[in-house]
């Protein structure tokens, strides 16, 4: 069965700092990968997703993630964070060929200091 591991539960950064949130998954086959974000008081929403093709995926609000198959990783990055990026971020995976359910990580709470 698939599983997702997010390395950091809580990250605190100052504005303009660079961000990288780690995500590793366990599954030997082809996967679809997602990052979801939940801003304070808002619905959980999709930030970006990878299905196939270019392993560097660009999402909304300047976020990007890189799929490294050999490392089973899908880390989320942003070169310069803003206070408005304060939110909880969830990595998720599903087994593509089996069309299986999406498994979410435990989330990383990001707090940006103004």
């Amino acid at each position, binding site marked *: 069965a698939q599983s997702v591991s997010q390395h950091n539960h809580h990250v605190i950064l100052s504005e303009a700092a660079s961000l990288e949130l780690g995500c590793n998954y366990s599954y030997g086959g082809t996967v679809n990968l997602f990052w979801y974000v939940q801003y304070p008081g808002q619905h959980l929403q999709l930030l970006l997703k990878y299905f196939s093709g270019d392993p560097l995926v660009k999402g909304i609000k300047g976020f990007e993630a890189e799929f490294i198959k050999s490392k089973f990783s899908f880390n989320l990055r942003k070169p310069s964070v803003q206070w408005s990026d304060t939110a909880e971020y969830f990595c998720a995976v599903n087994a*593509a060929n089996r069309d299986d359910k999406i498994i979410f990580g435990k989330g990383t709470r990001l707090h940006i200091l103004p």
Partner: protein
Amino acid sequence: SQTIHQWPATLVQPVGSPLSLECTVEGTSNPNLYWYRQAAGRGLQLLFYSVGIGQISSEVPQNLSASRPQDRQFILSSKKLLLSDSGFYLCAWSHTSSFHNEQFFGPGTRLTVL
């Protein structure tokens, strides 16, 4: 455009009382529907999903149940609530009968069992 509604937004119930949380989707037909529970530091736990009317798959054994009486209505129920049922319940939908599609989340219901 599609929208997803959940109610109530918050609920405080005594142990042993029944539960009914409702989720409805507008603007789409035959969606996949999902119930998740979000607990702090534990991510999103998939509870139930449905690919059609009357079709419910349960992911975790517990005292909760789900029903889908209409195409765009998904109900989460319990006959007798436990303290451990407290949490934030999210309903989500996706476009087709395929898990890899983006899931759209509702605003959630915060349930407190006393």
